[in-house]
């Protein structure tokens, strides 16, 4: 009679990496294991022994030849060492009890049941590299990693802006170019404007005399990019400004290095964002917009597959939703007649921070100029209703009663907004914390930016001066604990629709967002984006460079995981959400995720306190 190794078997049943092993073979598997105890500070694997290793307790680090941390194995993680390594793979960083399936026993087992091969193969294929997790399905990533300098046309034609239109057209024809850079007579070599085929077409259509100087028809001021800018960012820049040519300048001295056209980019992949934005701009009614927005989940999937990082994905998605919002407002203005006075449409929340994904909702508000005629509010209320309903129809969920311009709290004249923001930022009650975060994350999507920007600037100054607000926000950041339990297992949602999953947004991203907001406020930075806020805070010395790097990495990793999770949901026809089942992650992803949570947890303990001390 054999004793029952049920406790060990139960543990192994909880290891997702052993999932391919059928229940019937598990007893045979357990019976072939040996147990090793590795003291903290010893090396792994013991005696450089190959085989399959499963961590029962403790922590083991895997490092590469250059001693760079590649992976961190914790409870339930396994690693397959297919042959005896010439040197240790890494140190044991916490006393560890590990299960070992020696090679010859793995072979025995393979003869009994082929599925063990799957377990071993799955682990062997997993690249032992930190960026391995972010690689998609092998798509062509060139656009994302390649700097603009590789794609641009060098030595662009540069002409003086006193040239006549006809001379400019001849020059472009001879050089066979679609865009001509221009400089002022007194500053040769320094482009001040650009003339494109489109400008020429428009000039002819408007009966402009071909002998007038190009300076009257050229587009200026110029939007430029640096040589080292990733091509993807250039793409975003073009889409945002609705332009097709970007002069490229040298980082060192701001001199002209080349020109990048959208055709240069279209030759590569990843252009669907540009097309999507263009189509939205051309759409003439809500039905049209709805049709186009159905492509949004596909866009995210495509971005994930092409290896875009979380920042690129969220910025692209936000750009599309910004464009949608703008187009809805334009259509509304067309139907309702022009607005009675100046106003601006504001976005807060993830849209305000440029952090949206395909699973998002509305956080918007309206600011109205103080000089509006009596009864002007009716027009804006109608606008708010139409636009929020339009967004909802296009898949951006309305969020009634929250940050919603159909509610008078979120649709105020400028002076009223100024008073309200002063009140919340100077003397915040805990209840106001949520309002304060929304006010700090707001940005203008459409309309007169000069109505809101001074208010935001003043809010920053006010906020940074007031201890009460800073500590309220810091408390808020503390109140969102990352979901790691005492034994560094994930703490999962325990009830509701998403039981046994991790809410990546609530538990993973929002703690970082909340911290970044506090740090940026300390630094007096107007940045809304979390990554930008963290960088700004590091520049201002509010947090250490390393803390900023850690938090940026953590944000990028968790947001990237969320994007991939949603993209796989989209692919399998499910509605995307933020609820991740950690059991579906690879060991590597799980250990990265734990590392990310731990970084957040550490930063929360030290950096927040430091920031408060520096300030105080």
């Amino acid at each position: 009679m054999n004793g029952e190794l049920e406790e060990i078997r139960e543990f192994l049943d909880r290891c997702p990496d052993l999932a391919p092993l059928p229940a019937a073979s598990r007893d045979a598997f357990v019976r072939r294991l040996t147990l090793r105890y590795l003291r903290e500070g010893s090396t792994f694997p013991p005696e450089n022994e190959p085989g399959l290793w499963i961590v029962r307790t403790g922590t083991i680090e895997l490092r590469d030849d250059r001693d760079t941390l590649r992976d961190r194995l914790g409870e339930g993680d396994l690693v397959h060492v297919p042959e005896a390594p010439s040197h240790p793979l890494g140190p044991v960083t916490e006393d560890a009890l590990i299960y070992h399936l020696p090679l010859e026993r793995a072979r025995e087992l393979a003869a009994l049941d082929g599925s063990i091969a799957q377990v071993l193969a799955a682990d062997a294929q997993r690249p032992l590299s930190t960026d391995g997790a972010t690689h998609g399905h092998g798509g062509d990533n060139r656009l994302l990693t390649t700097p603009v300098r590789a794609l641009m046309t060098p030595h662009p034609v540069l002409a003086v802006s006193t040239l006549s239109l006809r001379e400019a057209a001849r020059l472009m024809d001879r050089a066979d170019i679609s865009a001509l850079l221009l400089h002022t007579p007194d500053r040769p070599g320094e482009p001040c404007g650009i003339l494109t085929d489109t400008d020429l077409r428009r000039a002819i259509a408007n009966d402009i005399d071909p002998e007038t100087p190009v300076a009257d028809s050229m587009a200026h001021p110029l939007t430029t990019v640096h040589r080292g800018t990733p091509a993807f960012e250039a793409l975003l820049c073009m889409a945002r400004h609705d332009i097709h040519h970007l002069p490229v300048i040298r980082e060192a001295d701001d001199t002209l290095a080349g020109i990048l056209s959208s055709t240069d980019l279209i030759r590569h992949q990843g252009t669907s964002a540009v097309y999507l934005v263009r189509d939205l701009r051309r759409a003439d009614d809500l039905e049209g917009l709805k049709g186009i927005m159905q492509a949004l989940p596909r866009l995210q999937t495509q971005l994930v597959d092409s290896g875009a990082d979380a920042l690129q994905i969220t910025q692209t998605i936000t750009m599309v939703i910004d464009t949608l919002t703008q187009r809805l407002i334009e259509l509304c203005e067309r139907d309702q007649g022009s607005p009675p006075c100046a106003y601006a449409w504001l976005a807060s929340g993830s849209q305000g921070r440029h952090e949206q994904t395909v699973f998002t909702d509305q956080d918007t508000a309206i600011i109205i100029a103080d000089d509006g005629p009596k009864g002007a509010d009716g027009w804006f209320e109608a606008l708010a209703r139409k636009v929020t309903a339009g967004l909802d129809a296009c898949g951006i969920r309305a969020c009634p009663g929250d940050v919603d311009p159909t509610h008078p709290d979120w649709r105020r004249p400028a002076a009223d907004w100024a008073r309200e923001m002063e009140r919340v930022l100077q003397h915040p009650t805990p209840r106001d914390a949520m309002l304060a975060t929304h006010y700090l994350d707001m940005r203008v999507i459409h309309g007169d930016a000069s109505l809101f920007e001074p208010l935001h600037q003043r809010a920053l100054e006010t906020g940074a001066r007031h201890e009460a607000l800073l500590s309220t926000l810091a408390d808020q950041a503390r109140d969102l604990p990352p979901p790691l339990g005492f034994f560094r297992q994930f703490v999962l949602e325990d009830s509701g629709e998403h039981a046994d999953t991790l809410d990546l947004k609530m538990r993973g991203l929002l703690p970082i967002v909340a911290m970044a907001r506090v740090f940026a406020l300390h630094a007096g930075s107007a940045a809304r984006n979390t990554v930008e806020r963290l960088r700004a805070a590091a520049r201002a010395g509010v947090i250490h460079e390393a803390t900023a790097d850690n938090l940026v990495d953590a944000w990028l990793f968790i947001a990237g995981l969320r994007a991939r999770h949603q993209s796989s949901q989209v692919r399998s026809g499910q509605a995307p959400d933020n609820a991740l089942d950690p059991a579906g992650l690879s060991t590597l992803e799980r250990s990265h995720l734990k590392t990310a949570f731990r970084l957040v947890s550490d930063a929360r303990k030290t950096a927040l306190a430091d920031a408060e001390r520096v300030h105080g």
Partner: protein
Amino acid sequence: MVCALHNADWRRPPGHWRFCRARRRAARHAPAGPLRACLEAPLPPSGQPVAASHFLAVDLETTGLDPEHDRILSIGWVAMDGPRIDLATADQRLVRAEGPVPEASAVIHRITDRRAASGVPLEEALDALFQALAGRVMVAHHAALEIGFLEQACQRLYGVRPPLAIVDTLRLAETALRRAGQPIPAHGLRLHTLRARYNLPAYRAHDALFDAIAAGELFAALLSRQSPDGKLPLGRVLFRPAWLW
């Protein structure tokens, strides 16, 4: 006798030749079978490195603490080659009860009368144990209990008290803690308390097999600290039964 065992100084060399002589004498008196084979199997020299030595972690579940009056309910064991615990060798025997299982011990071991009745005769259980133990050094937590019960049972069934080479993880841990100058709290030397100290998982207590595995793991943990390279001589970890010297 239990007191004498406690006072033994396990750090002194075990007097290997005397121990072996006692084993040979016991082997001569034992009936043919696994016990005799076990006693006849040569023991490793006491200077042999622990990493190259073979062990068998053993745990007994009993109806009480007194070998004279209490009975063995189950025996669990697992073999260790140096610091490696081999689950392929993990085994246990439930011992068929000769009377009712006292309620107090049934609560602890979850061995009820019905389960106890499904066991094997004590002799069969001991045969299986001694078969596994041949050529190996026994490892147990608070070994005095195991020694007491095994000797009593062997005396009754075979007419000999076998001198068994034993490692006591409780003694080893106690010495390690004292040497490190660490205070030993009340119950600080219990198997489960010590295991937590060495970051070993909590097993459901009082299952002979898992307690044997638990003792083996604790032994591996202690070895990893006392002798990271595994070169420590076996004699240095042996618990020496005092009556032999």
